[in-house]
Structures are given as structure tokens and as C-alpha cells.
């Protein structure tokens, strides 16, 4: 890891660890917007992490940007950092102004699509996207839509969208977003040749993979710590072989999730062309379920309460694994690539990753 990477990572980690307390997380669950924390994050320049300096960004390496999200995931940061990073990346690619506040992206589900067409001097955009992260809080919504065989980035502001509230299991906003109306020419720009909606899905998946790996690492620490503290039958439960074997399984999946996040981060820049993003999201998603199950089993009833912090992480794991494509989605995609490669092409395909 380069020195810059280390500094960014440590600084972000310090900020999140200091600020994202259980109280703030409980507040976020009741719908509070953590404005102070967002301001601090903006002051660090993190929302511009994935934008090159030539476009006014910070120009972090994509792998380092993913590491920031990993650290955020470990702290269950209840803010649209990944989404704003992504939105700005696409805005910059299209030559549109960056977002000056929190932003989000749409569509985020493989089946949702917007309809964009020329209307008068400008454009008309219509359509609905569901499960859009933080739509209610976004000052800018980046929408991708296809028209005439090209993919366009559309920069929408507050007044141009209607949202309906919905949530993931961690009570993070996952809203429905409705658009139907004119958009000025200045807010619409084509993306570079070869960039498409699939890239948004893939890059979102890569960042969720990073977040899951972070959360899983923290869950491992918490669970080992708890096992060493909690006594039953006269000794810490971590001394019981049954618990030890379970925690070893947890650690194995944590290692796999970490490797998966590394693979996904390395593929991030390539968007939908990257198979390692598919691999990463699928593998980390599988780990997420196993890890949450074992962590709760070891924590027992106490981990099942709202007071204990475990659920801030496990509820996110149960949510994130299904966002930007669940395991079945990405496993299937990888399987189809193997089928296309044919039996004798399977190994070359794997060895190239």
C-alpha cells in the first residue's frame, strides 16, 4: 500500500470511528440526516475520491477509493458516500458539473430503465427506479439512460424528481425515484464510447463488496472479543471448542470476503468489463450471510437486541448482499461466461483473473 493510500485510509478511519457512534447510528435509523458528519467527509474531499484531479477531483486510485468505502463499511457509516463518489465519477466522465452535496445514482436494479428522448431544444426524461440509495437526501441525482444507441448521463436536481420512501433492513434509505419531465441540454451529456448502464451496476457492486468486507472484518473482531469476555459454565465461551470451530469458519469467510473485495476493487475501473467484480460481489455476498449467522449465534440473545451494536453491521450485510445484484445474479453471470468459454476455456478464463 502506498503512503498516500495509508494516510487516506487512516484519516477516514479516524473520522468514522470518532463520529459514527451507536447514538448516531440509532439516530440515522430514525431518519436523522448526519449533516455534521457529511460536512466533515466533504472537507476531506472523499466525495470526489474517484474523480481525477484534471476534473477537479481528488484523483485517488480506484483501489484506494474502494478502501475508503471498506473503512466506511466497517463503521456502518450511514451516509451516501459510495453513491456520491459514483455519481461524481460519471458526472466527470460526461463533462457535467460535479455534485456540491450528497448525490446518488439511478438505476441500481438490473431491470429498471429510464426513457430519454429529444424534446424541443432539450430533452425529456421519464421513468421509475426503485431501491435508489438515499434518493430523499440527494441534492444531485445522476441518472443514466440510453438514447439512439448511446448512453447519457443526466444530472438532476432536487426539484426534478419525486421520491417515495423505502428502506433496507438497516433502515438506510432505498427510495423509489420517479422522473417525468423536461431536462435542459446543459444537464445531459453523452458518456464516453463503451461506457454504459452496466458499468454503474458493476461499480456499485464493487463498492458494496468493499463495504461488506469492511463490515465483516469488524464483525469478526467484535465476535472474537465477545467470545473472550462472555462466560458460561464457568469460563469464557471462546474456550469451548464448538464456538472456536464456528469462529474459525467465520474467519475463513472473512478472509475470502477480503480477497473478494481486493479482486472487486482491482476491477472497479473496468466497470462491467471486469469479471473480478462479479466474483467479488458474489463471494462477499455469500460470506455476508454466513458471517452474520455465526456472529449472532455466538453473541446469543444480547446480540439480538437494539442496544448492542452488532445489528448495525449485520443488518447492513443482510441488505448490501442484495444490492447491485445478489449472489445469484453475479454467480450466474460468471457461470454464463464459463459456459461461453467452453470446457477447455474455463481454466484460461480463471487463470487470467
Amino acid at each position, binding site marked *: 500500500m502506498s503512503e498516500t493510500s495509508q494516510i487516506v485510509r487512516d484519516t477516514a478511519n479516524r473520522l468514522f470511528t470518532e463520529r459514527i457512534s451507536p447514538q448516531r447510528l440509532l439516530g440515522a*435509523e430514525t431518519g436523522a440526516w448526519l449533516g455534521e458528519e457529511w460536512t466533515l467527509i466533504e472537507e476531506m474531499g472523499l466525495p470526489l475520491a474517484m474523480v481525477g484531479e484534471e476534473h477537479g477531483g481528488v484523483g485517488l486510485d480506484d483501489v484506494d477509493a474502494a478502501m475508503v468505502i471498506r473503512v466506511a463499511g466497517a463503521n456502518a457509516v450511514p451516509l451516501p458516500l459510495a453513491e456520491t463518489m459514483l455519481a461524481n465519477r460519471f458526472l466527470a466522465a460526461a463533462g457535467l458539473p460535479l455534485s456540491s452535496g450528497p448525490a446518488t445514482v439511478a438505476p441500481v436494479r438490473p431491470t429498471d430503465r429510464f426513457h430519454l428522448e429529444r424534446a424541443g431544444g432539450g430533452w425529456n426524461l421519464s421513468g421509475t427506479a426503485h*431501491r435508489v440509495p438515499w434518493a430523499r437526501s440527494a441534492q444531485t441525482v445522476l441518472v443514466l439512460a440510453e438514447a439512439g444507441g448511446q448512453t447519457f448521463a443526466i444530472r438532476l436536481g432536487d426539484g426534478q424528481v419525486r421520491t417515495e420512501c*423505502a*428502506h*433496507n*433492513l438497516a433502515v438506510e434509505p*432505498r427510495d423509489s425515484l420517479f422522473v417525468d419531465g423536461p431536462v435542459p441540454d446543459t444537464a445531459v451529456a453523452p458518456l464516453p464510447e463503451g461506457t454504459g448502464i452496466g458499468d454503474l451496476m458493476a461499480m456499485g457492486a464493487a463498492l458494496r463488496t468493499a463495504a461488506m468486507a469492511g463490515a465483516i472484518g469488524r464483525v469478526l473482531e467484535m465476535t472474537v472479543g465477545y467470545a473472550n469476555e462472555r*462466560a*458460561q*459454565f*464457568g469460563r469464557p465461551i471462546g474456550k*469451548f471448542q*464448538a*464456538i472456536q470451530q464456528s469462529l474459525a469458519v467465520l474467519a475463513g469467510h472473512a478472509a475470502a470476503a477480503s480477497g473478494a473485495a481486493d479482486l472487486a476493487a482491482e476491477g472497479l475501473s473496468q466497470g462491467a468489463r471486469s469479471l473480478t467484480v462479479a466474483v467479488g460481489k458474489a463471494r462477499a455476498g455469500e460470506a455476508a*450471510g454466513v458471517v*452474520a*449467522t455465526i456472529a*449472532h*449465534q455466538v453473541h*446469543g*440473545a444480547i*446480540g*439480538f*437486541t*437494539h*442496544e448492542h451494536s*452488532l*445489528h448495525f453491521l*449485520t*443488518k447492513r450485510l*443482510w*441488505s448490501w448482499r*442484495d*444490492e447491485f445484484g*445478489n*449472489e*445469484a*445474479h453475479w454467480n450466474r453471470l460468471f457461470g454464463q461466461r464459463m459456459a461461453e468459454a467452453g470446457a477447455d476455456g474455463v481454466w484460461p478464463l480463471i487463470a487470467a483473473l
Partner: protein
Amino acid sequence: MQDFSFPAPPTAPDTAELRAEVRAFLAAELAGYPAAKRIRSWSGFDAEFSRKLGQRGWIGMAWPKQYGGHERSALERYVVLEELLAAGAPVAAHWIADRQSGPLLLKVGTEEQKRSILPRIAAGEFFFCIGMSEPDSGSDLAAVRTRAVPVEGGWRVNGTKLWTTYAHHAHAMILYCRTGAADDRHGGTSQFLVDLTLPGITIRPIADLSGARHFNEVVFEDVLLPHSALIGQEGDGWNQVMSELAYERSGPERFMSTFVLFVELVRALGSQMTPDAAGALGRLGVHLVVLRRLSRSVAGMLQDGRNPALQASVVKDLGALVEQEIPEIARQLMAMEPDLRSHDALSAVLGYSILNAPAFSLRGGTREILRGIIARGLGLR
């Protein structure tokens, strides 16, 4: 190696009529009751509904008539239980009393306890909670610290019970606590029948990870219990609790907690199911059918006066796995995001199931504890 066999369930008198009766009742009572509530299953609390069940004679079904029971067979009772669960009926109010508090009193209670309490349970008007777990005594029941000290006129209780489901709605608690020396792990404990309105009892809510309230902390501060509150023999608490376990661990509630999700999944997949989806669903159905067979076998053994604690542990261990597997398979088959508050029934039911699934292998004996019991039965400990 102890006997692990599961005899064929008793061939009951024809239960078809009873089953039809229960279904008709549920169809009427639960018309329009949404899947998002049905999924709560035996965690759903509705005192009015319990009262109606009592009026139909479906609580305390197998108890003697002299105590308000109906002297029906264990299999008839089983039919009612499983129909309630399959429909996702809100049965939490009376479930504990019907399943274990009543049977405990019937077995070792005093004539006075039986006469005063059992008919009210059977009427669906008197609800129980279980006072077993404590802050430092979850899996290790013998480590309870709550203590009842003999005083003039009865007992004085001090201590804290934790994870007491629906204590805030219950009328009474079966309290498990220490009455003897602290170093006598199993010998020095007793059970008491506790009126929860007594002075000195404080019931505090504990929110679960989804923010819902059903757990409580119940604090006893110099609570005075009359002599008549003792259940069974002083010092016999451990043995009495152990004999409750087969009731607690073998019923259909131990594998049907996510059955409503299973049904909604079949609904969502519809008739154009792919062969692979049919295989995945079929496998879950297969598991449920076999579990039902084993569970009914235990019901028969209980009716015959045997103590199938080992078989009950097997049912609960296998059952929790299937209950937990259903949401995992559902989300892969449907590629949907779970959302507890969604308008979409499947998403909401899935969300509830995912959030609650971890509890299935904790409540009523953790997976590790159950497997330890099974290992002991195998002669390994």
C-alpha cells in the same frame, strides 16, 4: 447410546373434521390478515384472538375436564397447533401457557394451583411468561442467581430475569430460581408461580434488533411470594425444568416459523416455476414433511407418558435449520431486496424472516446446547 427412535405417530381418531373446523374458523377470523403479520406466527400477540380460541375449546385441549380442559388426544391438539401456525395466526398470548406452564402445573402443581389457574388458561384469558434466563445465565441455566429466601408467610425474591418474552402482557410467570446453596448447581433450585402484579416487580422493555418490543427484563426487588406459590418440590426445580423441555422443543412451532414466507414464495413463483426452483422448493417441502412426522412422533410419546427429551432436541435442531434456510433460498430465487416495511408482501415477509432467523437457533436452547444434549444421548459425554 440412548434410544433415539421415533415410533410411528399414533393413529388418532379421524381428525379430518376437527381440521376442517379449525380451517373454517381461521378463514373467517383471519380474512384480510396480511402476510406481513402472519409471518410473526407464534410471536404475534392478540389477546382477543386467544380468547376466541379458548371459547372454541382449543386451548388446554388435552387437559382433564375438571380443570377446564377438553380431554382430547395429543394428535388432535397437534392438528389445532399446526393449523394455527400454517395460517400465521397470532397465538403468542396463550402459547406458553398452553404448551408448558399449564402442563407443568398439571403435573406437579397443587390442587389449588390447578383449580385456580388451569381453567383460566384454557379459557384463553390467562397468559404466562417464562422466567428462566438471566444476565449471566443464558445457556448455563444452572448458573441462575435470582434467589428466593424463605421468610415468614412465604418467600422473598430478589434478582433479574432477562429475555422474558411478553412479560409485559402476561399475567403470571413461572419463575425458576435458587432456593438452596449456590454451589449446588442443579440441586438448589425451585419453581414458583408468580403473579406479575405483585409489588417489587419491574418489567422493562428490551427492543430487538429491528426495534420491536417483545423481550423484557424483569427485576425482582424484595418480592414476597406466599407459600402457595411454590410449584412442585423445593429443590426440584432443575428436574422439573428439564422435564418441560420436551414440550418446549418438539412442537410444530420449531420448524414452521417461516412457513408463511414459504407459502408466499410459492405464490410469487407461480405455476411457471423452473425445474430448479421446483427442486429448491420441493426440497424445503420435503424437509418440512419429515420434520412434521418426527414432531408428531414426539407428541405421541409425550401422550404415552414417555420423556422424549432427546428426540425433541433433534426436532428443534433440524427444525431451526430449515426455518433459517427458507429465507436464504427465497432471496436467491426471487432476487429481491428485503424490506421490513415494504408494501410488497414478499419483500416484507422476507425482511421479517431474515431479521428474526438468528433467534431460531438461540431461543429455547441454542444449537450448541441442543447438540451437546444429543451427544450426551449418544453416549459421548
